[in-house]
Structures are given as structure tokens and as C-alpha cells.
């Protein structure tokens, strides 16, 4: 009754579209030649090369560190903000808060990148600090709406009555939050954190403009290679990361399922 003829076919096309490039990427990571386009036989040499290339390794680790920190911060502040702006009657300034939180979604990246370059450079000069903090802050900021949306959605769907019940059963507001709200909110928080993590991992434009010495991430490293030659080394790294994520996500998925 729910079937609409043709829809499954179009869905299949979508999935092919989504996976064809990924499959190509994975296949070429096993290329023996130096090209990401010319197949010269099967080999693990690019995995070895990536494994040996310190700059790539550092960039990978840095990407993960930035993404992890930024998504953690973004998730934390978004959770708080979602708690403050959801399931509450409109209050003075609530629209402004909402607009500000979603602002990074609306402003094209390049604009933010230039603005951040100028402002952060001023701060860097005046404070003398030029660590990863700027990258993490910038990433955390543009991750906020991505973390906020699923958390808010979860909160909106969450029955207020659980918290009321907890208060009724002598739980102080903090206890209510720790014991009831947070556990119930956790699927939304996990979704938000994951989304933020991916978004951070993906960013190149803002990172390129904000990074200081020794702060290449995987994407900016690759951007630097664009002008010369991109080797299957990056495919190898991506394949490895992809494998790790798929394993982790599958584990999460299976665990989540069993718990229900």
C-alpha cells in the first residue's frame, strides 16, 4: 500500500551515486602506480607510504584532535543552548539566540574564513598565543548549529513529564538533569556530536585561513597538494579512516540495538 512504483529504482540510483565515488576511492588506494586515476595493479604501497609519511600522520592526528575537541565543545555548548531554548515559551531575546546559533549555516564559509583570518591574526599578535585553540574555536563555532539541531529535535520530542516526575520524586534540578534529562537526551547528543565531528573533519576553507605554523589538517594538506600531484596516499588514508569509522559506527549500531 505504501509502495510507489519507481521510487525504489530512484533510491537505488541515489545509492549508486553515493557509493560509486567511495568505491573508486577505496579501489585506487590499492593502486600500485602513483596515480589516483591510472590503474597499475594491486599493492599496499600507499598504505605503507601514508604510514611512513610523518606530515600526513601528523595532519591526520591533528584533524582528529581538532574534530574531537571542536565537536566536544560544540556539543557541550549546544546541549546547554538547546536546553535553554527548547520546551520553553518564547522569551525576550529567544529569537536572537536562535538566529545567532544558526548563523554559521547561513554565511558562506569563505566569508567567515576571511573575517576570522583578520580578527584571529590581531588576537594572535596581541596575545602571542598561536596554538590550536583558534582552529578549535573556529571549528567549534561552525559546528554549533550542526550539533544543536539533532539535540533540539530530540529535546522537542522528549516528554517534559519525565523531568516533572523526577522533581516530584525529590530530585533537585541538578539531579534531575544528571539522572533523567541527560540519559534521555543522549541519542540526540551522540547524533549531534557525530555530525559536528564530521563537519569539522571536512572543513578546508576556514582551516586554511585560520591555521598557524604547523597546523595543517588532512584537508589543508591535500589542498596544498592540489597544485602538484595528488597521490593515492590520500586515498589510502581515507580508506583507513573510513574502515575505522564504519567499524566504530557498526559497533555503536549493534550495541544500541542490543540495549533496546
Amino acid at each position: 500500500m505504501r509502495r510507489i512504483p519507481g521510487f525504489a529504482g530512484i533510491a537505488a540510483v541515489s545509492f549508486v551515486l553515493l557509493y560509486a565515488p567511495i568505491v573508486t576511492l577505496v579501489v585506487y588506494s590499492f593502486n600500485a602506480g602513483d596515480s589516483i586515476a591510472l590503474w597499475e595493479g594491486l599493492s599496499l604501497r600507499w598504505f605503507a607510504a601514508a604510514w611512513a609519511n610523518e606530515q600526513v600522520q601528523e595532519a591526520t592526528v591533528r584533524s582528529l584532535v581538532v574534530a574531537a575537541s571542536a565537536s566536544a565543545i560544540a556539543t557541550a555548548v549546544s546541549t546547554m543552548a538547546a536546553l535553554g531554548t527548547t520546551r520553553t515559551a518564547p522569551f525576550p531575546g529567544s529569537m536572537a539566540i536562535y538566529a545567532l546559533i544558526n548563523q554559521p549555516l547561513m554565511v558562506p564559509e569563505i566569508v567567515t574564513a576571511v573575517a576570522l583570518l583578520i580578527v584571529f591574526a590581531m588576537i594572535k599578535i596581541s596575545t602571542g598565543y598561536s596554538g590550536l585553540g583558534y582552529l578549535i574555536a573556529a571549528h567549534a563555532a561552525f559546528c554549533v548549529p550542526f550539533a544543536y539541531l539533532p539535540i533540539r529535535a530530540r529535546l522537542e520530542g522528549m516528554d517534559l513529564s519525565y523531568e516533572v516526575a523526577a522533581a516530584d520524586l525529590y530530585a533537585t534540578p541538578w539531579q534531575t538533569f544528571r539522572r533523567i534529562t541527560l540519559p534521555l537526551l543522549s541519542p540526540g547528543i551522540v547524533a549531534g556530536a557525530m555530525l559536528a565531528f564530521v563537519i569539522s573533519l571536512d572543513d578546508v576553507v576556514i582551516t586554511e585561513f585560520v591555521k598557524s605554523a604547523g597546523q595543517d589538517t588532512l584537508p589543508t594538506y591535500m589542498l596544498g597538494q592540489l597544485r602538484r600531484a595528488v597521490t593515492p596516499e590520500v586515498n589510502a588514508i581515507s580508506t583507513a579512516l573510513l574502515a575505522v569509522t564504519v567499524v566504530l559506527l557498526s559497533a555503536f549500531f549493534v550495541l544500541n540495538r542490543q540495549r533496546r
Partner: protein
Amino acid sequence: EGELNIYNWGNYTNPELIKKFEETYKVKVTITDYDSNSTALTKVKAGGHGFDIVVPSANYVPIFVQEGLLLETRPDKMENFKNVDPQWVDVPWDPGRHYTVPWQWGTTGIALNTSIYSGDPNTSAIFMDPPPELVGKVNVVPEMNDVIGLAIMYVGGEPCTEDKNVLRQVRDKLMAAKPKWQSMDYGMTEKMSNGDVMASVNWNGSTFRVRLKNPKVVYGYPKEGYVVWMDSVAVLKDAKNVENAKLFQNFIMDPENAALISAFARYANGVKGSEQYMPEDMKTAPEIVVPEKYKAAGKFLPTCSKAARDLYTAIWTELRK
């Protein structure tokens, strides 16, 4: 001991060279990449970046100097300066080498896949007036100075000319040629090897690497005039590790070390005696060792006046849109 922060083009620095430097001086070197002179300039100018060394192209060096971004480290007084090929000492962008040390140099010419067009590759007409076989198959690397330099020489002008008639011709010809181009992109090592692009304005080192994969590809030195360029190593004024940076400048003027640079990115380096340490295939490659008969057409791009620069930029922006 200490640290050194190098800000260089992506995939341009030989890790072996760095390792050797680190081991020799017990310095921790960090490489950070950029992908264009303008990005590098912008970030350095904004400040607070933490870089010690930058590797701008020749035409950007005077800008860095004028903006007061470079430290006058006097490489000409360094121990290894004696190794620098005299040809690269009194260069227009840094007369007497008060600021910079040669990194690599090369030429910008034409790369052509002869399987599709068997005409003469040694002309800028390949991209300024593409023969019918190449229409829609030519790439032009989006490097302003190189392309406009080639175009000026193609219409008979001198690089850095402010002659509006010449420049108008340059613009009009470029604008007329653009629709016949396939793209304005980098990454020709890859794309010409696998046949995605059949001809391109390209750098010699890249073309050399293409030829190793695809012997059909030849490098052309445009007879109307082609561009000779050099990227040089400079120390930034706000560098925190000035001494290490100077050590590095000196270090890469050693022929053995200079050869390491070339072995990785496949361009010549401007240090006498480095040839003997270079890979065999580079020593005779017509892309790297400019054949005698083409030498005359090569022109070094001087640093132009502000007026000329503004005009170039205007033409370039118009072309890119």
C-alpha cells in the same frame, strides 16, 4: 636545538632533506603548506602565524620586502653562498641576495601530448591560438604572472610592459582564447599522464614527470618567449627562530642538500655542483636542462611597477571570471 617553522608550497619539500637538517642541527622542523603566493602573502601580512621561513616566487619577493615582511639575513655573507650559481646571484628581485636563497627554478612552457597534435610544441600559440585539434583540450595553469608573461611575449611585448596597446592586445587575445580552453587548473602531472588533458601551459618539472609515465608528452619552449621562474627561501621578520632559519638558508646552499630538493620536486635548484647528486634521469632530461637552442627565448620575469601590476591583476581577474 630549537624549532623551525617552514611555510612552503604543498608537496614541495623533501622529507629526507628535513630529516637531514633536523639530525644535523638537532632542530625540530615543522612544515606547513600553502597553495598560492597570495595566500602566503595574505597570511604572513595578517601576522600571528608563527612561521619562520617562506618560499615565495620571484615576483612576490619584492612585495614581501616592500611590505617589510622579510628579515635581511644577508645570505650573501653565509658560508655556503659560494656554491650559488653566479647566474642566480644578482637577480632583479633580490639584487645581491640580501634576503633570499635559491630553492628551485624552472621554466613555464608548453606540455603537449603528441598523439593528438603533431605540430610544433615550441610556441605559445598552443594556448593563445589553439590549432583545431586542440580546441577544448588545452589547459592553462592559473598562475597569473606566468600566463600573462607568456601572453605578452606572444604578442611581441616585453614582460612588465605598461604599454596599453600591448596589454589591450594581451587581454583581447586571452579573452578570445579562453573559450577554446578546457580548463584553468593545476595538477597536470596527473591529468596529462592519464590523458584527461592533451596540452597545457605547464611547468617543466611537472612535464618531466608526465613524460616518464607517458612518453607521448613533450615539453615545448615557446619561441615567442617563455618564462623562467625561481622560488626563493626567505626568513620572515617576525620569525621566532631566526638563527635556525639562517642555518636552514645556509644548509640548502650545500650542493648535496640542494640536490635533495630537486630529487623530490624535480626542478633545478641554482646551486653549482648539485647536479652530480641528482637522480640520473634528471641530468639529461630536456625539460630540466634547457637545450641550447631554446635558451635565448627564456625570460626572467622582473618585478613590475605598481601600475603594471595593477593592470596585470585587472586583466587576470577579468580572465578568471
